[in-house]
Each structure stands twice: as structure tokens, then as C-alpha cells.
């Protein structure tokens, strides 16, 4: 795999993200978000994370996109993205938010000096746990895909949690959307 090749996907992803936040047609924005996810999925693959890439393509680009589109059809298509009408509180809020963004960016860039180089094969993360998994996975589980061994065996508890998260989302939607149906039967809310 060639890491430098992924630079292209990076740039594409950034463009897709920016445009998706910019456009006022929400449907287009949703489509662009799907595109973003898809590009990111390609990026994952180009970085050697095939499983994550597939997952992102299916869930990120696919499921999220579809959910968004359904939601948009149920609500409204246009985003006004209007500049707020200058209430002082919200102007202050924007200022604080901007400052927060700048702060987060600065802090993250400052961290750069302490991080191992991109692609460094002897970085701590590349050695400790990683080595033990790569060397032990096939031996332990007789499955060639190390990531599969990891999520299904070494860290199966995470996967249980993941299952519960999905289940929770289902329950949450049930709790929320069911209520609305009842309200409709009662008559439209004001």
C-alpha cells in the first residue's frame, strides 16, 4: 500500500466535507456526506484498513445516507443557513465557538511535535499490542483476518457493547417515534 496515494483521498474528503456543509439543499448535502464517507472509506482502504473501509462504505456512506434522505423527505429540504439576526447573545455564542475551534485546532497542532511520524513502523502503537496480536492471532483463533480475531475474540466484549448500542438506537427510535404517532391520534400538536 502506498500511503502517499491517500493524500488524494484526503483532499477529496476535505472538499466533500466543506461543500456538504456549504450547500443549502439538504438533499445535496446528504449526498455529499455520503460521498465524503465513501471517499473516507477509500482512504481507509488505501491506508491498509480494508475492514474499516468496507464498514464505512456500507454503514457510513450507505446506511447514514439513506437515513438522512428519509429524514429529509420527512422534514424539509432547504436549509436557510441564515445569518442570525444579530441578537447579542448569539453573536457572543458564535465568538466563543470560533475561539473554541481555534483553541482546539491550536492544541491539536501543538500535539504534533510529540506524535510519532506518519507511517513510522517502530512507533509505540505499532509495536506493543499490535505485535502481540499479529503474532498471536492466527495461532489463537485459526482465522487469517487479524481484525476479525480481535473483534470476535480478544475484544469480544466491545462487540457486545456495539450490539447493545445498535439495540439501544432501535429502542430509542421506538420510544421517540411511537410517541409522535400517539400525539397524532390525539390531534395535531400546536
Amino acid at each position, binding site marked *: 500500500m502506498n500511503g502517499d496515494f491517500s493524500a488524494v483521498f484526503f483532499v477529496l474528503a476535505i472538499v466533500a466535507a466543506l461543500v456538504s456543509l456549504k450547500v443549502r439543499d439538504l438533499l445535496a448535502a446528504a449526498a455529499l456526506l455520503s460521498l465524503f464517507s465513501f471517499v473516507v472509506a477509500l482512504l481507509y482502504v488505501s491506508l491498509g484498513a480494508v475492514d474499516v473501509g468496507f464498514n464505512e462504505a456500507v454503514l457510513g456512506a450507505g446506511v447514514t445516507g439513506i437515513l438522512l434522505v428519509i429524514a429529509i423527505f420527512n422534514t424539509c429540504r432547504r436549509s436557510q443557513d441564515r445569518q442570525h439576526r444579530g441578537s447579542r447573545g448569539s453573536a457572543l455564542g458564535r465568538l466563543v465557538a470560533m475561539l473554541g475551534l481555534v483553541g482546539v485546532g491550536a492544541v491539536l497542532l501543538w500535539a504534533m*511535535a510529540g506524535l510519532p511520524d506518519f507511517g513510522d513502523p517502530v512507533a509505540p502503537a505499532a509495536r506493543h499490542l499490535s505485535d502481540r496480536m499479529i503474532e498471536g492471532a492466527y495461532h489463537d483463533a485459526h482465522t487469517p483476518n487479524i481484525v476479525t480475531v480481535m473483534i470476535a475474540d480478544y475484544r469480544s*466484549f466491545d*462487540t457486545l457493547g456495539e450490539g447493545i448500542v445498535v439495540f439501544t438506537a432501535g429502542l430509542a427510535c421506538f420510544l421517540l417515534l411511537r410517541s409522535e404517532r400517539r400525539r397524532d391520534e390525539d390531534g395535531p400538536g400546536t
Partner: protein
Amino acid sequence: MTLESPVQIAFLAAGGVAHESARLVPNASDLPALILVPLIVGVFLVPLLGLLRRRLAYVTTLLILATYAALALTGLRTVLDGSAIHYRMAGWTPPLGIELALDPLSAFVMVTIAVIGLLVTIYAGAAVRRETPEREVAFFALMVVMLLGLSGMVMTADLFNLYVFFEVSSLSGYALMAVGHRKAVVSAYRYLLLGTIGASFYLLGVGFLYVLTGSLNMADVAARLGDLAGNPALSVSLVFMVLGLGLKMALFPLHIWLPDAYTYASSTSTAIIAPVMTKVSAYVLIRMLYFVYGADWSLSELGVGPVVAWLAMGGVVWGSVMALAQQDAKRMLAYSSVAQVGYIGLGLATGHPLALTGAILHILNHAMMKSTLFLVTGSVELSGGSRRLGDWKGLGRRMPLTFVGFTLAALAMVGIPPTSGFFSKWYLALGLADSGQWALLVLLILSGLLTAGYFFRVLERVYAREPREGAVQPAGEATAAMNLPVIALGAGTLLLGLFNAWFVGRVIAQALPAGLNLPGVS
């Protein structure tokens, strides 16, 4: 592959239970997993039985939480000698696999969650049916899910696993927060956005830690941090942890989601979420600061301690002042939560064993007080009253039992001895004094006045005023099932206060991180 783990765990649980019945003694080494089993089973069992008969959901939840509470108490008793039980999920040694750790601190928080969860559930039987009609099954199931998520967060010794359970509890929390008042959906949405930022910041912090150490197990990470002290990336990881957890625990000024969310959610939602959700985040922060990063480096050397301490104090003052200005009981309590979380933040940021003791004690303490108070607002509303404090005049005579609980909890909030509220502040104050933080000490003491201001205002109305014409008044006393938890929790604050020395000596002294020892406790 998703199915494999529940099966594994169920198998494990069956094994554990069989073992137990054979020897009539719980097998202590299985306890960490065993405690979670009822909740994991409950997540699936509650909706399943609920589909059969709606009422079964409530009963099942009650049984499951009772089992959970019993197990959590057993767990606490087992580790009170200061030991810790480590359980390897699926049998893999950490850091390869995920480890659950039951030590005095996690057992203590677990018991807090369990007890509050159980008592609120007793209350919820009637309340949920009224507040979220026809959706009790989902409501109770989500409640169990949330408690599972929180318990997972408390027990896991793995940084990423903690994130997963973080999200489990958050997602169910968002949903629970969205039922209630019509406006609740909007506040829940805001909560979701900010909560996601919080969780993601935490994840980012984990990312940095992983990149620097190559490990995810807390103990392992802590051991491998040794020579990284000067690394900016390590500092940044801590910053994001504090920001992320600060958001979830509503540390000032990251509390902005809280007042609306607590005000508009249904009374049961608030009563279950307000006491435990922010506290568990505080607990995780304690874990990170003291057990992973090490307090010497994180609080003192990096200077996070003073910053968080002063922000927390800012939260105490701001929350109290805002609470003073509220006319809506729930909103007042919500702001008071901001203030009370400030006390916890203050204690954990000071780095002094006594202050940390105060913070840990306040976790339980505030959980009890706040759930009592929110339950009382719920009782008033469900009995036909209003949340407007102006309409609370004369309620003391109309709902005498309910307001016994309220009064006890309010006095504890103000910090009148011998309620527990006094003692958590006492330890905080001792810690601040001993570490020479005079300014914070004086502010801490004076903040009690603000709290007194908004609670005595209510007590005066409740007991010494006549209801005005046309006030929305409750029909009468709440039901026994609603009053039982209220009184039990209110009395709990008194008992915890009277026996705080025992409690601190037996439980919290064991829960303190190594190197921090309480003076006067052997």
C-alpha cells in the same frame, strides 16, 4: 460475531451461578462479570417480556435491578479490604483482551448507581405509565441499558471499552431525556450534539494515549507513560479527556446543555439521569487523573488541577446564583446540579486525599439528594401540582410525607450537620485548608449561603405560606410507592452523615488511589 459474546457471557454467568449454588458462597473472582450479567440479561429480557404483557416490563426491571444491587453490594463487601478483583473477559490476558476491575472505588460507584437505580425504579412504576403512556416497555428497557452502560464504564479497565459503554449510556440517556415536556426533544437534541462532542473528545484522548503507548488497558497505559511526561501529545490527550468528560459531567462552563435537558425531561428520566450520569463521568475523570495519568503529573505538573478547581468553583457560584433566580422547581434543581458537580470537580482537582474523599463522598451524597429532590418535583406534578415554585405554597401540609424527604434532602444540600451534605463539604474544606488554598476554601464555605438561599426560599413557601387563589395544587399525598424511595433517600442522607466516619474509613479510604492516604485512618 455479535451474538457470540452474549452467549459467552450467559454461559459464564450460568457457570458462576452453578458454582455459587454448589458452594453456597459466591465465587469472588467472577464477581466483576457477574454484576453485569443481570443488566445484560435485562436489556433483552425487559423488552421481550414487555411485549408479552406491558406490566411485566416494570416487574422485570425491578427484579433485575434488585439482583444487580445485591450483586453490587456483595462486590463492594468483597473488595472492602482494599483488594481488587480483575476479571478477564473471554479469558485473554490484558492488554490483549479486555479486563474488568472491581476495586473499592468502582464498587462504590457501582453501588451508588444500583441503589439509586433501584429506588427510582420503585418510584417509576406509576410515574412512567402516566408520563410516557404505552411506551413503558421501551422506557424501562432504556433505563436498564443506561444503567448497564454506566456500570460498564465504571467497571471496565480498558480505555476503548469505556468509550463503547460511554456511548451505550449516552444514547439511552438522549432518548430518556427526549420524553417529557414538548420542548424536551430540542434540549435532548442539543444534549446529543454536545454529548457526542464530549464522547468523541474522550475517544480522541484515548487515541493519543494509544498512539503514545500502544496499549489500551488502563494499568498498562499507566505503566508505559513513565518517560512521556514532557510530551506535548500526552498533555493534549489529557486536555481532551478533561474536556470530553467535563462536557458529560457538566463542568462549568461546559454545562450549557444541562439546565434545559433536566428541566424538560420527564420526572423519572431526570430522577434517574441527574443523579448518576454526571457522577459516573466524574468517576471516570478521577480514574484518568489519578490512576492513568497520575495526579502528580496531571494535576500539579501540567497544572490541570488549579484550572479545573477554579472552573469548578466558578460552576458552584454560577449554578447557585442561577438557581436562586429560577421560578421553576426543576430548573432550579438543574442549576443546583451544576453547582454540586462543581464541588465534585473541586475535590478531584485539588489532589489532596481529604478533598478527593469529599468528592467521592459527594458522588453518593449528591446522587441521593438530587434524586430525592427530582422525585419530589415529580410527585408534586404527578399529583396534579405544578412545577412553579409560586404554586408550592402550603404544600408541606398537603403532602407532608413527600416533603419530609424534600426537607431532609434540601438541608443536606445546604450542608446542615449532621446530614451527609455537611460532611462532604467538610472533607473538601479540610483538603483545601491543608493544601493552603485559602481563597477556594473561603469561597467553598460561602457558597453554602447561596444554596441556603434557594432552598430556604422553597421551604418557607412550602411550610409557612398559604396557597394563593387559583394556584395549581396537588390533590394530596403521593402514593406509597412514590413516597418510599423519597423518604428512604432523604433518610439516607441523614444516616450517611451520621455514619460518615465509618463510611469514609471503611469504604472511601480504601478507594483512594495508592499514595493518597487519609490522615487519622489506619
